[in-house]
């Protein structure tokens, strides 16, 4: 097995497309992080009395009123607007005191990896590329002959992909740390940290992210070996998501607790539930208060984990069965 993993490393490290995807994910993460900071740090423009007066005139509010009535009402209206603007600013400042903390270490790590969809999409893409190319290039036969045992071939590919997943998340976490440090160094506006992360749930969240990515990799692997293609599985995943949405909408037509609970057992629904419930417990800014998907059947957290794991195992069993029994005609 170690020999196969070494061979995978020798091979995958030379693939430029994978590095490009890797760098793109970091770039998207970094740009998202900085753009998020710039948005969050921006104060609303100060109250502009002249502009407010002009807006008031153009709003048609004074239509039908005499000049005396207008002159009497205008100062009060402007004063109300100014008070509202000042209240908004105060609220915004209070909000900023919290929201800007997510750009500080260690909150920044979860801000970077917590809710990003790019790493997940990238990993599914990488999985289909890494396994699909074996069929596209016809190297699957040489690889299988070299590996001898077909299950070992599949397991080594999956381990390599999971290692890449971990590597990608570690790189994103490091990027978050570096960017937090850069913000401090350049004297960016950062409030004092008052919102601590809860280490247990935070680690559980990172684990859940990696578990979700692994399950999706297993799905991509299963589809890739079933279809002997790297492109078709991506299409199937999209169709699968649409199908899930369609089935999830069925209870609208046939109400009932049992039927409406079915979507809870879908992979994406269970995954989102898991991430939201654990995310809410982390104390991470931006993750607390997330909306948990509707749950007509009350499932304990371990049960939701079991649903996600079960989907992953199902995909692995399909991939394993397929790779061990398929005729290699490439």
């Amino acid at each position: 097995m170690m020999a196969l993993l070494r061979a995978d490393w020798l091979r995958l490290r030379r693939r430029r497309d994978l590095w490009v995807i890797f760098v793109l994910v970091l770039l998207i993460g970094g740009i998202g992080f900085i753009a998020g900071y710039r948005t969050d740090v921006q104060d609303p423009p100060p109250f502009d009395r002249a502009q407010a007066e002009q807006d008031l005139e153009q709003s048609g509010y004074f239509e039908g009123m005499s000049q005396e009535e207008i002159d009497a009402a205008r100062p009060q209206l402007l004063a109300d607007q100014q008070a509202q603007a000042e209240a908004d600013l105060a609220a915004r400042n209070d909000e900023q005191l919290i929201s800007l903390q997510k750009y500080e270490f260690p909150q920044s790590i979860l801000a970077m990896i917590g809710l990003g969809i790019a790493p997940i999409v990238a990993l599914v893409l990488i999985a289909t590329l890494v396994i699909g190319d074996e069929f596209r290039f016809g190297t699957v036969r040489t690889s299988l002959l070299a590996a001898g045992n077909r299950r070992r071939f599949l397991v080594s590919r999956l381990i390599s992909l999971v290692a890449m997943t971990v590597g990608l998340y570690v790189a994103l976490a490091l990027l978050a740390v570096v960017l937090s440090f850069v913000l401090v160094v350049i004297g960016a506006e950062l409030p004092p940290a008052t919102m601590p992360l809860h280490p247990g749930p935070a680690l559980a969240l990172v684990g859940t992210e990696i578990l979700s990515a692994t399950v999706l990799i297993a799905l991509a692997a299963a589809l890739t070996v079933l279809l002997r293609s790297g492109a078709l599985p991506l299409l199937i995943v999209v169709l699968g998501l649409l199908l899930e949405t369609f089935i999830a909408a069925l209870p609208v037509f046939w109400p009932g607790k049992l039927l409406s609970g079915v979507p809870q057992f879908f992979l994406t629904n269970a995954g989102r539930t898991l991430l939201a419930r654990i995310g809410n417990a982390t104390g991470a800014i931006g993750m607390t208060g997330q909306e948990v998907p509707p749950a007509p059947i009350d499932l304990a957290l371990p049960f939701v984990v079991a649903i996600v794991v079960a989907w992953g195992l199902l995909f692995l069993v399909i991939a394993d069965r397929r790779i061990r029994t398929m005729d290699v005609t490439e």
Partner: protein
Amino acid sequence: MLDGAAPPVIETRGLRKRFAGVEAVAGIDLAVPPGGVYGFLGPNGAGKTTTIRLLLGLLRPSGGVSRVFGEVVEPGAPVLSRIGALIERPAFYPYLSALENLAVFGTARGIPADVLTGRTREVLDQVGLAAVARRKAGGFSTGMLQRLALALVLLDRPRLVILDEPTNGLDPNGVVDVRRLIAGMAASGATVFLSTHVLPEVEQLCNRVAILRDGVVVAEGAPGSLLRENDHLFVRFDTPSEARAARALLGVAATETAAGPNGGAALLVDMPASRASSVNRTLAEASLHPAELTIRRQSLEAIFRELTAEPEASATADDRRTPTAPPAAPPDPLAIPPDAPPAPAAGSPT
């Protein structure tokens, strides 16, 4: 080098493979002895590549069994990693150089890194790719890919090498180089199972051959014995009446043929060289005295063509050799009693 008593390196029993209603391999029995080069011949579509893929565990058989080194071959069988194989249209990672491809597959085969470093250079030099070792395989021609695949085969000096059309796409120099490599592998004690269309290759390299047609083996043996089995006796008489009488005497085995520049009338007798003396004696006993009796040996190409021709065109030859349908032998007018003294041959092989 060849050891007839040792268990076969490759053995198949009733091996079959069916694809969507088409029987590509229809019950192959093979026993490839250890050492030497075993030729696996057949026209396009005869089932050679399918058989090879079955032997390499890339396909699951629809029936029968194959064994390599005594172990049953199935997808993922451990014995597969002991085989060096070149499958038609070799495939490599196009984004890796020749050197890197060998390193990847060599590492996957469990060759230690320190051994690989020197060995990859050595085998690339052997196959004539040393100058392009760092070039990406994606830019290689068919012939270069073929050479790279051979380099991969040579990498860990396997005891069994299975080669499917190894000289495809090679220039004449490449063909000679590859033949030399194959001979070298066999000389080092490896068993080489060579599938090819190139009959001179077979004549030069192979100790034994199997000829495949429509998914079954129609002939098997040492090339020399196959040639001998397909010998014909050329019998020329001074007069047509003698030839007619001889034909009546020899029965269905004899057919008329051109007498050649010396004139007279001639027969071609479908019998091996070992029967020359008995033919001569039979004719002499009937007071028929040939002006010439020589052995006409067919080329391997002619035998191949005869054995692999469409059944309508070569029904006689096929019926004689297809193991799955043994023919009823016609009565032999030249049967020699067991105690009869051997008669001297009247002619010499041509």
